[in-house]
C-alpha cells in the first residue's frame, strides 16, 4: 500500500471552502467558520464508522469464541454475547456504539485486557512522532529540491531532481525500507535495524557515552528515527518537490515578480521572499493531506521497522477480529484526518491575507 496521497489526488489548488473571499470581521467569524467545518465533518465521521461497522459485521469468525479461548461453553458464551450486545440487530448495535462514543467511551478490547482508548493512546503517540519526523524531513528536502529545480529551470539539476522525485513516488516504501536497513544497518552498522528506542538501562548508556547529553540522546532515541523517518518521508518529499517546483514556476511568471526583478532585486531574494511565499498555498495543502495520510497509513513502514505504532496495532486488531479496537482506531484516524484538513484550511488565512472566513 502506498503511504501517500493518491497520486491522482495531488491537489491542484486550495479547496473551494477556503477560497471564499468574503469580507467579514475576523474573530467571531473565524470561530463560526471552525464550528461550521466541524459540523460538516460529523456526517463524515458517522459515515466512516458506519461503513467500518457494516463491513465488520459481515466478517467471518465469532468474537465471543476468540474472547473465551480454549474452554468454550455455550452458556457462558451466550451470556457474554448478551453483555456485549452481539445478539442485537445490527442497527441497534451501531446505535449502542454511537451512544458510547458520544460519551467518550471507545469500548474495551476483546483481546487486550484494556479499554480501547488506553490501548491505542501510546500507539497513536508513537505513530504521531514518526509522522512528525517524516513530515519535517519531507518539507525540508522537498521544498529545497523544488526551489532549486524552479530557480534553475531546465538545467541538469532540474531534470535530475525531478527524475528522483518521480522515482520517489514510484518506490514501494517497504522495499526502500528494506534497502536502507540492508545498507545502513546491516552492512555499515551506523543505524539500528528496527525498534524505536534503546531498550537497555539508560543509566548504563549514560556512562557508556561519557555523560554527553547529545550522544546519549542520539543512542537513546534519535538514531532509531532516521531510517523509518526517511522511508516514510520519501513519497511526500517527492510530491512536495514536484509541487513546489510547479507552483514556483507559475508564480514567477506573474507580473509582480517580473517587476521585482526589474527593480534590480537579487535573483535569490526574489525567489525566496516573493515567489516562495506565494507558492506556499498548494504546498501547505499537500503537506496537510499527506500528513493525515501518513498518520493513518504508516502500516508498512511500521511493519518493516517493527515500529510499535497505530498502523501495526490496527492490522493486528483486524487479524485478531478485535472489533472494538478496529472501530475505535478507524474513528480516531478519521477525526485526525478531519482536524488536520481543517488546520490546513485555516493556515491559508495565515499565508494569504486575501482569504477570509465566512
Amino acid at each position, binding site marked *: 500500500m502506498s503511504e501517500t496521497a493518491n497520486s491522482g489526488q495531488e491537489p491542484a489548488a486550495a479547496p473551494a471552502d477556503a477560497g471564499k473571499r468574503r469580507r467579514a470581521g475576523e474573530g467571531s467569524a473565524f470561530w463560526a467558520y471552525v464550528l461550521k467545518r466541524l459540523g460538516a465533518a460529523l456526517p463524515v465521521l458517522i459515515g466512516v464508522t458506519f461503513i467500518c461497522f457494516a463491513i465488520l459485521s459481515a466478517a467471518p469468525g465469532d468474537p465471543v469464541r*476468540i474472547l473465551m479461548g*480454549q474452554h468454550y461453553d455455550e452458556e457462558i458464551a451466550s451470556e457474554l454475547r448478551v453483555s456485549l450486545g452481539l445478539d442485537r440487530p445490527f442497527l441497534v448495535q451501531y446505535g449502542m456504539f454511537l451512544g458510547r462514543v458520544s460519551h467518550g467511551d471507545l469500548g474495551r478490547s476483546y483481546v487486550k*485486557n484494556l479499554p480501547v482508548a488506553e490501548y491505542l493512546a501510546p500507539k497513536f503517540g508513537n505513530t504521531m512522532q514518526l509522522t512528525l519526523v517524516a513530515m519535517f524531513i519531507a518539507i525540508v528536502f522537498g521544498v529545497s529540491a523544488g526551489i532549486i529545480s524552479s530557480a534553475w529551470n531546465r538545467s541538469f539539476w532540474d531534470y535530475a531532481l525531478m527524475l528522483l522525485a518521480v522515482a520517489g513516488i514510484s518506490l514501494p516504501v517497504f522495499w526502500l525500507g528494506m534497502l536502507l536497513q540492508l545498507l545502513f544497518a546491516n552492512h555499515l552498522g551506523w543505524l539500528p535495524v528496527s*525498534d524505536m*528506542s534503546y531498550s537497555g538501562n539508560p*543509566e548504563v548508556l549514560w*556512562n557508556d557515552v561519557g555523560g554527553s547529553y547529545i550522544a546519549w540522546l542520539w543512542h537513546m532515541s534519535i538514531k532509531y528515527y532516521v531510517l523509518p523517518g526517511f522511508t516514510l518521508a520519501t513519497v511526500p518529499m517527492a510530491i512536495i518537490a514536484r509541487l513546489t517546483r510547479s507552483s514556483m514556476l507559475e508564480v514567477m511568471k506573474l507580473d509582480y515578480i517580473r517587476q521585482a526583478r526589474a527593480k534590480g532585486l537579487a535573483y535569490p531574494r526574489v525567489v525566496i521572499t516573493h515567489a516562495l511565499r506565494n507558492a*506556499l498555498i498548494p504546498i501547505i495543502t499537500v503537506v496537510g493531506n499527506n500528513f493525515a495520510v501518513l498518520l493513518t497509513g504508516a502500516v508498512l513502514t511500521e511493519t518493516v521497522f517493527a515500529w510499535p505504532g497505530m498502523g501495526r496495532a490496527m492490522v493486528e486488531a483486524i487479524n485478531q477480529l478485535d472489533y472494538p479496537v478496529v472501530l475505535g482506531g478507524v474513528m480516531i484516524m478519521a477525526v485526525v484526518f478531519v482536524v488536520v484538513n481543517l488546520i490546513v484550511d485555516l493556515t491559508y488565512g495565515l499565508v494569504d491575507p486575501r482569504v477570509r472566513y465566512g
Partner: protein
Amino acid sequence: MRRFNLSILISVIALLAMAGCPKPPTGNTGNTGNTNTGGTDGQARARNYNFPLPADVKSLDPAHITDTVSDSVAQRLFNRLVKFDTDGSVEPDLAESYEISDDGLVYTFHLRSGVKFHNGEDLNADDVIYSYTRLVDPGTNSERANLMFYVTGAADYLNGSAESVSGLKEVDERTVQISLSAPYAPFLNVLCMTTFGVVPGSEVTRDEKGFGANPVGTGPFVFESWTPDERVVLKANRTYFGQVPEIETLTFRIINDENTRFENFRNGTLEHCDIPPSKIKTVTDDPKLSGLISGEPAMDMYAYGFNCDAAPFKDNAALRQALNYAVDKQNIIDNIWSGLVTAQNTIVPAGMFYHYDGSTGYPYDPKKAEELLAQAGYPKGEGLPPLTLNIDLQPTNKLVAEAVQEDLSRIGVTVNIETTDWGPFLDKVYAGNSLFFQNTWLGDYPDPDNWLYQLLHSENFGDAGNISRWSNPQFDRLVKEAQVEPDQQKRSDLYRQAEEIALSEAPWLLLFWKNSSTLVQPYVQGLTITKMDRTPQLNNAPIEEVTYSD
C-alpha cells in the same frame, strides 16, 4: 500574523517532534558524573535482567493462565507445593516434604514455615485450600478447572452440588491433605503447573478481577508494574524463603518481532533471545555468536493434525498415513530450520521415563505414499477435494506449510494454505471447522499422560485438547489403565502399546520437535534451559539462580 514563514511551520513540527525526547537519567544535563548509578557497567547491568517475550501477557492470575507467555512471568511470582527440577523430576517447593498413601489416593503435604506473601502475610494451609478450591469455583470460571477433577468432590463443587471440595483438607496450619477419587500417577506433575500457584486469599477476595493485573505471590520476584504491550517489571523478593536472586530487576520486554529481539540481543540490551530461523546461518557462521547457544531438543512439538471426525479423513487411516509418508521432513529440518529441530517419529517426546526409542515414524517415501493414497480410494489424488491447511501467521510456519504443500502436490494432493492470527485460528480449530491444521504442543509436565491422554484421548475430544477429534476405544482403555498404574515399568508398557496404535492410525502428520536453542550473553551464569522450555519464554529455567560473571 499577516506574514507567514515556512520556517515557522518547520519549527513547529520540529518542536512537536522534540517534545517526546527522553530526559537524561541524572536529571542534570551538564553533569558527566554518575551520581545515582553508583558504579560501573557490570554492576549496573547486574541489577537488571532483560527478558524478551514474543507477545503481551494476558493475565497473571494462576487460575487464568493458558498461554506460555503469561506463564513465563507467573512462574517467577508464585510457588506451588512442588516444582520441577531442571531435569524434570519433582522436588518440594512450598511443601517441605510430602507422603503418598499406598493406594495412591491420599497426598499429604507438610508446608515450610515462615513463608510470607509479597504483601507480608504468612502463607498457611488455608491459602493452599483456598487457591485450589478457587480453581473449581464457578465464580472464578477458570479455564483450567478440569485439572482439579482428579480431586474428590471437585466436580461436585463446580456444578454447585457441594459446599466445598471434599478432597481438600487442612489437617493443621502447616499440613494439607488432598484425596483423589482414583489413583492418578502423574498427579504430582500436575501440581507443579503454574495453575496450582498458591495465592493469598485475602488479596484475591478484595479484588478478584484485578488480581491478574496486580498479582501477589510468594515467589523469588515481586510484581512491580505491567505496561501493556511494552513491559512487565518484577523486583527481587528480598525475603524469599529460597535463594534470594542476585538480579535486582527482572524486566520482561514484549517484542513481537523475532528479528528485533535478535538485534536487541546483539546490541546487548537483552540477556537472552531466540534465534530467528532466517538468521541461523548468520549465527552459526559468527564464532562470537555460535558459542553463545545453549538448549536442547525440547518437549515442544510442531506437527499438523487431521480432523479425524470429518470426510475425507474420517475412518481413512490409509489416507492419513499416505500424507505422512509423502512429507520430506529432512528437507524442512535442513532448509527451513537449518538443523535446529529434530524429526518427529513418536507422539511422546524424549526426556521422560517413557520414550519409544525404536520408532522410525514415517520416513519420507513418496512411492509408498502413492500406494497408500490409491488404497485410500484416491489414486493419484483423484477425487480428493483440495485440503485447506490452517496455520498461524509466523513466517517460518508459512515456509514449512509451503514445503508440505509442495510435497503433497507431488503425490497429487492439492493443499491451500490459510494463514490467520492465533485467536481466529484456534477459534476455527476448536469449533471443528478446520480439516487440516497446525498442531503444536509444549509439554506441561514430563509425563506421557500430558501427550497421550491430553491430546488424543476421547475424553478430551475437541477443544479440551484432542483437536484431531480422533478416538480409538482400545487406545482410550490403555491410557486410562496407565493413569492408575503405580508401577512405572508397567506404565511404560501400557504407553508403548497405546502409542503404537496412535502412530499407526496417524491422527497427526508428524513433523518435528523444536529445540530450546537460545542465545545467552556470555556473562550470564546459571541459566539452565530445560527440555520443558520454549524459547524465548523459558518458562522453567530458574532465572532466580542467574548470576553475572563480570
